[in-house]
């Protein structure tokens, strides 16, 4: 288990640190920054109604996700075939490296709550657009596009 995964699992088992921040919005994922230091940024994310990040990478940061309520699915982008998909329910966790390209989406009928740690703290990201012919385009984004959406 990665250090980051251990970190999010530990935090997941301490709801007194984040339960008061849980709030769901049908229009978009809800984000709360729980902690930030030189080495790691930790976020609480609330999901519902098939919210979907789209394919992205985290540029220089690795990360880990612990699910504390509901279910999310992680799709790893694969060439020439369907994505590699894994679903994670409450009590489960997963991690990814800076080199991985994935998307995370809400699945199931109940809202989900997840805890994410990024190390070093997320700075820039790549968002992937898949054109009709299968060509990939990478758009370089500030992490705000993912974690601080417009409204």
């Amino acid at each position: 288990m990665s250090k980051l995964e251990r970190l999010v699992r530990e935090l997941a088992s301490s709801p007194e640190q984040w339960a008061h921040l849980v709030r769901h919005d049908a229009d978009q994922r809800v984000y709360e920054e729980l902690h930030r230091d030189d080495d790691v940024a930790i976020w609480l994310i609330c999901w519902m109604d098939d919210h979907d990040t789209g394919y992205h990478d985290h540029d220089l940061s690795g990360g880990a996700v612990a699910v504390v309520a509901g279910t999310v699915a992680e799709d790893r982008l694969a060439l020439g075939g369907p994505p590699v998909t894994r679903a994670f329910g409450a009590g489960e966790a997963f991690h990814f490296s800076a080199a991985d390209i994935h998307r995370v989406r809400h699945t199931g009928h109940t809202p989900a709550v997840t805890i994410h740690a990024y190390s070093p703290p997320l700075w820039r990201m790549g968002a992937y657009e898949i054109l009709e012919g299968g060509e990939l385009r990478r758009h370089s984004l500030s992490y705000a596009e993912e974690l601080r959406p417009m409204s």
Partner: protein
Amino acid sequence: MELAGEPPQPFDPHDHDPATRTGFDRVLIAPSSPLGIEWLPEAEELLEAFHAGVLSLGAPFELWAGLVLADPSPERVDALLDRGAVGLSLPASALSGPAGIEGLGPALERLAARGRPLFVHPGPAAGSPAWFPALTAYVAEMSTAWHAWAEWGRPAHPRLTVVFAMLAGLAPLHAERLAARGGPSHVVHDPLTFFDTSSYGPRAIDAMLRVVGVDRLLYGTDRPVVEPVPLALGDAAEHALVVANPERVL
């Protein structure tokens, strides 16, 4: 405009016409700290005239109040806030070390107790050409004030919201050096300290964003002296700097 030690500055009233500066919900006006009037024997009268003038404008205009630095009493802070000032604006040189911060202690304590923010802006600096002090004295002064805040200000005033102009002279980018030298580098992540981006562009702002995070940056410009450049950081970052973060501070 003619100031001691500086060449005359041509002044075009049109640049200051509110009709050409539309689209703002709130316009907060502070006395110009580079003029240095807070330190003058006549500070009381000059600041009072300025405060009364701004307060008489009405919405959307509001006041960042200056403070008579020879007598920075908490009663003055109360009186200014009672009259409607949103917070205090102080020259960075007033907060450059333990003596200045201690002298302003009761005033800052009162400001924090009333939940109002402090704006730290460069004070007087002479030199020619005009860009020279803006890149030397201003940067040094803001960097000094931020480091002094890290060492003496924040421990004494844990609840005060502080906004540093001009990205605090990029002082937080020195956090690794601050840590290496044994300083309080954790203050880089202080959630109540904010940084205005005036006269900086996408590269410096993105570098600061990497260190302090997007939630602590406030869009600023030095218009009409310096025309702003596009942020080029994306819609979400722009929304954070222009709308969401200023709303949290104010």
